[in-house]
């Protein structure tokens, strides 16, 4: 893997055991991604997009094949090893926000740093929340925030640990049109500012078009991989 490559996926296959027999949802997928770049994974429901994202981010283990993230083969790590990798170099934004309901906006953002045992990240967390337009909502609990606001907190949380790569799973899927546009601007803005690699899973072709590369999946296999002009 060259120094420029942040993510290298080789012959990745994922099979689940089901009552009806083994079900292969990803079949021999291979690609690599350069650091600082952006890539969208698109495809119909059930094409294996989310499974691919989960495997690339170390949330799951492949049945066969390998994933090298920031130079480390994460398939061979145990769950705690992969958790360390996620904490050190990965950021996440999910469709359903995934904030911790019992923590305030500020506390939610601080969690990745607190997990590392890093103190004194509060100023940066406040700055990030200011950056996403929530400077006045620091002490609000998720239940008091709108969907768009919750997603902005999630974005601030994703950037607090200065990730090398950001994985977004349908980041605008639960947002209305205007809010979704604002959110996308924020994601790409922060991505540029911080030089983070962006991997985006989406149905939204317009959103996908803003990335440098679009990979199309169908029935667990990559059917096209093209570069955009973005």
């Amino acid at each position: 893997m060259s120094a420029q490559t942040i993510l290298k996926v080789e012959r990745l296959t994922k099979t689940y055991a089901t009552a009806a027999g083994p079900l292969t949802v990803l079949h021999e997928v291979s690609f690599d991604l350069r650091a600082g770049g952006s890539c969208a994974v698109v495809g119909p429901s059930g094409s294996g997009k989310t499974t691919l994202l989960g495997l690339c981010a170390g949330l799951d283990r492949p049945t066969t094949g390998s994933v090298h993230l920031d130079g480390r083969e994460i398939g061979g790590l145990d769950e705690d090893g992969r958790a360390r990798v996620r904490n050190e170099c990965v950021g996440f934004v999910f469709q359903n926000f995934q904030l911790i309901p019992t923590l305030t906006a500020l506390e939610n953002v601080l969690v990745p740093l607190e997990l590392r045992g890093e103190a004194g990240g509060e100023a940066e967390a406040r700055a990030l929340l200011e950056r996403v337009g929530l400077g006045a909502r620091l002490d609000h609990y998720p239940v008091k925030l709108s969907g768009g606001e919750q997603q902005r907190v999630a974005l601030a949380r994703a950037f607090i640990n200065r990730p090398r790569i950001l994985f977004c799973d349908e980041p605008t899927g639960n947002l209305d049109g205007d809010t979704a546009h604002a959110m996308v601007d924020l994601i790409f803005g922060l991505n540029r500012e911080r030089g983070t690699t962006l991997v985006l899973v989406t149905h939204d072709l317009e959103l996908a078009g803003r990335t440098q590369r679009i990979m199309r999946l169908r029935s667990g296999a990559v059917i096209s991989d093209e570069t955009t002009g973005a």
Partner: protein
Amino acid sequence: MSFILKMAWRDTRASRRRLLLYSLSIVLGVAALIGISSLGESLRAAVDSQAKGLLGADLSASARQDFSGKALARLRATGGEMSLGIATTTMATFADGSHRLMQLTAVEGGFPFYGEVEVVPAGAFARLAEGDNAIVEEAALTQAGISLGGEIKLGPTTFTVVGVLKKYPGQSPFATLFAPRVQVSMAALQATKLLNRGSLSQRTAYLKLPAGTDAREAERRLRDELRGERLNFATAEERKQQLGDALKNVFSFTSLVGFLALFLGAVGVASAMHVFIRQRLPTVAVLRCLGASARTSFAIYLLQGLGLGLAGSALGAVLGLSLQFALPIVLQNFLPYHLEFVVAWPAVLKGVGAGVGVSLLFTLLPLLEVRRISPLHVLRSGYDEAGRPDPARWLVYAAIAAAVFGFATLQTTSWKVGLIFSAAMGVGFAVLAGAARGVIWAARRARTGWLPYTWRQGVANVHRPNNRTLLLLMSLGLGTFMLLTLLLARAALLGQLQGMGEGDRPNLMFFDVQADQIDRLGAIARREGVPLTKTSPIITMRLSGLKGRTAEELAADRNNGLPNWALRREYRSTYRGALDEAEKVIAGKFEGAVPADAARVPVSIEESLAKDLQLKLGDELEFNVQGVPVKAVIGSIRQVEWRRMQTNFFFVFPRGPLDAAPATFAAAAKAKTPADTARLQRAVGKELPNVSAIDLGFVLGLLDGIFTKIAWAVSFLASFTVITGLVVLVSAVLMGRHQRVREAVLLRTLGAQRAQLRQIMLAEYAVLGLLAAVTGGLLAVAANALLAKFLFKVSPVPPLPLLAGAVVVVTLLTIVTGWLANRGVSNHPPLAVLREET
């Protein structure tokens, strides 16, 4: 670590009140443990500090006959102060003509040397010497309705009551319940001539030893020196040890009842924690996703579990210490002292430790799931790990079993009892859990199509996902089981006693009847219309030889395993031509008559005594019958139904050899009404004042009173388990409340009326309450049958009325509790809840 602490605290923000409620499940268990142990500690301290008051002296020696000159000289030679007392049981007649068996006593000298005497008025004892004055125990005076200055007739003498005795050292509360104490002067006692009539009396010498004398050593020396004198010795130290051992047993076993409540509460906490963890699943997944290790997420929730245990135990400790005020009131009839409130910190620590330990062990079961929650939950909410078996679960189960066994063994200091207790708990919980699973299975398969919609929903709630059937059946079932077992056991014991005077069985007993009085007693009984049904001669004797060796030799030999009491005691035996209905020959043949000069008299021995004395058919014995040696041989072994209210004997002789021996008689009569009983007692009291009578109706009343007091004390302790069951029920209902609100809102959105929602809930709790009551009730019936057969050896009572009562009460209680805990569920505006869902 700081993150774990911070996160554990922050994570409870939205649910602190709910968590506190869950922790309440263990409060009563911890409170019971601390209350009982603290009271035990206070009692032990009281026994230590007031030990000598148990006897009133350092050492006592008692005999059935007058002390010999040698005995008195030896006793005096101990160098301290000596006081002599005489006690006999006799019938007292009160001014209203009523009779009561009483313990007539007289004491000369400074006894009691220790302990507290409480008499009203204070100087009453000084007035005994003034003439025919008596000090009478308060209970007897209250019952007879007389007060100071009233009269009481003992034998031919009428005494004036000059004092009310409230407290006296060495008095057993149960003994005085049957025969309350009446104290007169020694001269007045002699003047009644009651001692001259051959009635059973006891002489006691009370010794206050010189300071620094070892009472046990003095006792040993006196025993050796007065070996042939047939004396019984007692020391304050022995009494203290006996009482200490008895108290230890009582408190060990009652604390097991407390532990059961704690165990049930811990099951409740664990169940609440299970629901709580299920609700926290997304949070754990997010934490895992953001890089938290399995250990970190586990530690966060373990800390919360620990917090629950600590909160519940701390509240339990406060309640337990308050209980110390209540328990002495509940147990006052069984306590030898007035107790001072003392905070027993070791008991508090032990109770809190047990509370935290047991609840933590139980919460580990749901907490183990946290280790296995995958971060993939953030992507797929329905994601579930393949159900690989978790070996850690088995470790936790083993730790729980070890904790139960360890606790029970520590409390009772017997690993066997610990094992039986753990096994019984295991079986009880397994049966209830099995019944719950059976109910869920049956509810799933029940054809309920014919039921109205609301009842179909209610029954379906029993088996639907996230049901609380298992927990509710366990908590309510266990509570029902415990309370019903106690009630059934009490009913079985009382039923047995009540049966004693039924049919042709006698209900009035006379004893201390002299040989020249027996015919007259028969005539009086016939005249009063209550003829005697049976008379038995009673001859006092001692064992002097056994299988060729003297009783003295055998008693001195400590290696033969023969109990000293059996070798040294005075036997009250009888002779008759045939066995009666309470006896059954199990070996040999009973001979009813032999020639008066038979070389070897074939006697019949009671089976347990034969076992104790290691005697079998054909073994030879020698009795000392009031100075006359009588050689005997074991001719038969009898089983005796001792519980029958009649005179029973260890040895029964045939007619012939003992016919001429000095005897007193016991007689029995069957009175049809209480009025007959009173009339005959009055007549006998007037004409044969030395004859004592026991009225079975009166004894039953006393026993009923004692059982009621014991049952009340035990029920009080058992109520901790029952109330814990209700707390678990409330918390189980509240756990599912959120789900219920969502369901209610959806149903209301679809047009359900509030009345329909109420009916669904009513149906569900009625089914659960009914099944829990029936399961717990059936377990109690089985337990009661076992207790009746193997422990009480009585017939179990027909359980239907009690069972039916329990089923109705528990079902209603479940419905009411469910309704109260679910109040307001249907009041939530649908829109607010539906919005929350998005």
